[in-house]
């Protein structure tokens, strides 16, 4: 029971800082992971399939505060450890899968910006992927006494089945030429092109001599290209994580929403029919995003039939962890208790003798939160966790203080979702029945 798990200081600080800010930490996730073992093994199965040259498609559906983002990060960490390249992005009003006003290219740029590898888990790893591809080509050229450029060309021929591969190969070659000619400008332009940051074709032609750029209409094609390319560079495959899919549900324009759903359908078809290779998609969103039959994925006939629940599993009262759609349940008080012990562990760097609080205090903390904000303390635990981390920080810095004196004064507010920031100066006590308004 009392196994001592070493927690590195870097991970410890990252976890504490992130939790304090109310966001998911990027490092050391496994130290605070609670439950969900079946779901995770389902995803590990997916990752293995991608690494074997297959494809995967998953929808992670859970209510606000159920830990979707945490789950996605965890999956991402596992994928990196298994040698995949990952890209991830949150959808937002100006980032979506399909658009005619630059919003799809925005999404692509964000994905590429967050491209990570095992050695560069914090993103911005695209140029090192390209470097690795080039290095392998140089090695092969030297071994066979060949021209590097023709080796690059040879290797990139394997992309030729994909739309847009011609210019893609040209850009990679340009990167190599830039390296040869000591032109950092050309190299920077090549990376800019791969990042999807050119906004006009003219600009790209002047810089790199290519006729096309990443634009709204070919984002998915470029993701497929990238999936193949990372393999050529020696990685196992590409995992694409998209969070906050509910923004598609919220799109104010029916036509553009349907176009986005159509794009999801074609990705889903490619992945599940096996036409896509070495690439996987994990999409996370709230129940509305999936289930709403007027504005959600279910409003699109073809998606509804593909994504509906496993009828037999439902009838048998069990969960099918291989289903395309995984539902994450909200946390329970028991889960929160385990989570609090893990955070205590993190503070103590895994050393039980350094615990800042006894078990009794954890229960006291939970019942205090329950009194103040009711079941929201475990259903949407962001603020609960934040308050707990604050409490531990205070205790850590002021060892003379007693936890019993502090708990009663802890300020914890229910975590309420909104896309609009709250008006800070405004009083909060005059909203009457609008506080927990139901239509």
């Amino acid at each position: 029971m009392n196994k001592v798990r070493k927690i590195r200081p870097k991970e410890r600080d990252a976890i504490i800082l992130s939790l304090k800010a109310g966001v998911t930490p990027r490092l050391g996730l496994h130290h605070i992971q609670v439950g969900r073992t079946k779901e995770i093994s389902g995803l590990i199965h997916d990752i293995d399939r991608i690494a074997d040259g297959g494809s995967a498609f998953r929808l992670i559906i859970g209510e606000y505060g159920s830990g979707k983002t945490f789950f996605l990060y965890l999956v991402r960490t596992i994928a990196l450890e298994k040698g995949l390249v990952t890209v991830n992005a949150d959808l937002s009003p100006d980032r979506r899968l399909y658009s005619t006003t630059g919003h799809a290219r925005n999404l692509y740029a964000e994905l590429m910006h967050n491209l990570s590898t095992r050695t560069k888990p914090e993103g911005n790893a695209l140029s090192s992927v390209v470097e690795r591809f080039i290095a392998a080509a140089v090695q092969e050229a030297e071994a066979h006494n060949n021209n590097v450029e023709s080796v690059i060309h040879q290797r990139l021929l394997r992309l030729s089945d994909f739309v847009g591969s011609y210019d893609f190969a040209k850009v990679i070659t340009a990167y190599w030429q830039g390296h040869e000619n000591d032109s950092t400008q050309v190299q920077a332009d090549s990376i800019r092109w791969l990042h999807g940051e050119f906004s006009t074709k003219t600009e790209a032609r002047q810089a790199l001599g290519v006729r096309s750029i990443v634009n709204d209409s070919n984002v998915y094609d470029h993701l497929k290209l990238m999936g193949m390319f990372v393999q050529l560079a020696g990685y196992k495959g590409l995992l694409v994580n998209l969070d906050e899919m509910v923004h598609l549900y919220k799109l104010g324009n029916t036509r553009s929403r349907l176009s986005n759903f159509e794009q999801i359908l074609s990705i889903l078809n490619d992945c599940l029919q096996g036409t896509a290779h070495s690439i996987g998609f994990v999409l996370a969103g709230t129940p509305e995003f999936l289930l709403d039959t007027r504005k959600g994925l279910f409003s699109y006939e073809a998606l509804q039939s593909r994504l509906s629940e496993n009828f037999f599993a439902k009838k048998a009262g069990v969960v099918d962890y291989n289903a395309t759609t995984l539902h994450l349940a909200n946390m329970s008080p028991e889960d929160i208790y385990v989570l609090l012990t893990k955070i205590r562990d993190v503070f103590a760097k895994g050393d039980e003798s350094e615990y800042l609080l006894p078990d009794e205090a954890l229960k006291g903390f939970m019942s205090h939160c329950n009194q103040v904000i009711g079941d929201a303390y475990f259903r949407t635990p962001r603020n609960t966790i934040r308050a707990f981390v604050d409490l531990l920080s205070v205790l850590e810095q002021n060892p003379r203080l007693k936890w019993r004196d502090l708990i009663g004064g802890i300020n914890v507010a229910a975590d309420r979702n909104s896309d609009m920031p709250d008006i800070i100066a405004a009083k909060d006590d005059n909203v009457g029945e609008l506080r927990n308004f139901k239509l």
Partner: protein
Amino acid sequence: MTQSASQAFNELHEGIQRWIWKHGWTELRDIQEMAITHILGAQKDVVISAATATGKTEAAFFPSCSYIAKNPSPGFQIVYISPLKALINDQFRRLKSLCEVVSVPLTPWHGDIAPAVKRERFSNPKGILLITPESLESLFVNQAVRLMPAFSNLSFIIIDEFHAFIGTERGCQLHSLMHRLEYVIGKSVPRIALSATLGDMEGVAAYLRPNGNMPCEVIESNRSRQVLKLQLRGYIKKGEPEEPDTIEEISGHLFKELRGSSNLIFANSRANTERYACELREKCEHHGLPNEFFPHHGNLSKGVRENIEKRLQQGKLPTSAVCTVTLELGIDIGSVNSIAQVGVPHSVASLRQRLGRSGRKGEPAVLRMYIEEKELTGRSHICDRLRVGLFQAVAVVNLLLKKWYEPPGKQRYHFSTLVQQVLSLLAQYGGIRADQVWKLLCDTGPFEKVTPDVFADFLRSLAKHDIITQTHDGLIVLGMKGERIVSHFNFYSAFFTPKEYRLETNGKALGTLPIHRPLSDKDYIIFAGKRWKVLKVDTKRKVVQLELSKGGRVPLFFGEGMMVHDEVRREMHKLYCNSSPRSYLDETAFNLWQDGLSGFNNLRLAENSIVEDESSIFIFPWLGDKALYTLTLFFQFYGLKAFVNSLCIEIRDSSIKEIKKTIQHVRETKMPAVHEITSLVNNKITDKYDYLLSTRLLEMDYSCKKLDFDSAWQWIQKEEI
């Protein structure tokens, strides 16, 4: 300009100083002098009030441009909001050279500017943005994520023709937009309002920023007063034919007096505008003279309107525009020699505006008013006998001379505009909690009258129509129908725009025509001051092809009735009681005046407010239209057959005794409840999104918008029986 002459001048950016020198200005106008220091401080709101063409625009732009030239930052630093596209084009032209000397880019932005130009400008926002409220609304809906970077360094919001916004749905939209913009960028931005002189300037200042978060300075011009030359001409309309014959006489006089100079002829309605423009043009042709009379109203195409504006601006050719309110606002059309008002003026403030167009550069303002009344016969109606139109015109002039203007109306709910703002907010952010929406728009924003429980009711009636819906975690998001509303280009305006046909001749756009009176092939119409034959009506593309021709009648336009204020009616009552005729009446008008007085005296209206003839009872409360209508509803509520007739309430099938008893009864019980009264009104839907509201909300809104319970109740209390 000597240095000692102007302290304020020295505070300006030297580029601006150079510009002023170069344009040969010898001194700053008084309002400019006063405005500079206040605006340069950038710490308070400023209301600049003066007549048109007294340098209000410069008073605002000299110091604000100086400020941003001295503190250049990325993004738009000044947003100038104008109610009219034409005014934006005009200001763009006027400000261009000023902005060039201080290297501040100037971006005009409205519905007629090409999308490509807008896209380019918005990708590199800088300097001054000239925009309409509707285009600003569309930025919130379509460019939500780019608002923050584009406006984060905003230093001033300048609102032109501010008086035109006061009390309207559009004004409410403007407030909401300014408030939302300040919320997005997280700071209050000084507002500079340019306004015509209205009676209660402190009231205007309060209206500029309802929550009073920033101090406000009111700057009024103390220039010497203008001399006014005024004539009121009366006309008698005989019989009741379709086409009034007085038009012939009035246009004859207009033709004789106005030809050869530049003038504005206000004809109260678009239909009349067309009628007079056509008549006057034909007179020119008949005499073999070049045409000088052109119509100008909102349904004419941009090109047609701009041609006339340009002609007036250049002032080379004598030009008279027959116009509606479109030329009441401050588009720079140079000075005109005189103003003609055809028909009864309804509001003092509006007449003041029109008058401001005449008599620039120290010349007297010239106003000719043309009032027509029906010929009296034995069967003439009481209201005709009183010569109501003439007396109203005189009352309005009286109040104008006393410098009284209609105050901003009582605070209203503006539910229709609230619908628009809630939808726009949802489109801007995606999903928002109900309490946040209320806090932003109602608690801290312009819809202060809306309480949480009313707002809850409001949201539920929107949900009933599938305008909004709610997610599991409580967020309000757009419903299916809400999406459709937001996606439509009509969404951005707070006011109602009827569906319209486009009128074309030889592929050139002439303007638009509302659909509610459909045209048929081979119809004849009068439009843009000319007579046309309808060649083809394309119902699918909503286009009507026209060809010049001879015949034609004036089409019906969509119009709204102006409300006459209590004070105007009280002034009329004084006029009837105190019988000295005004010297500016011509002979016919004088006779009409005498008719009116004898009508008044015969009815002994000085002593009585309830009189009767063979068929009806008439009540004269001498109150404005709102109170009049409210009283009428009171009587209806108690079962009387009452309706409003001009300035009195007419009641059929009753007796004076019964009516007095009713008044007595109302007074002794209590005022009928709002919903009891408003439920008598069949059509309470007056604004754009009213159809989405529950009956309760509609009634609340209607009672503030169209009724005046206080005034009506006061009359009931006071009325001696």
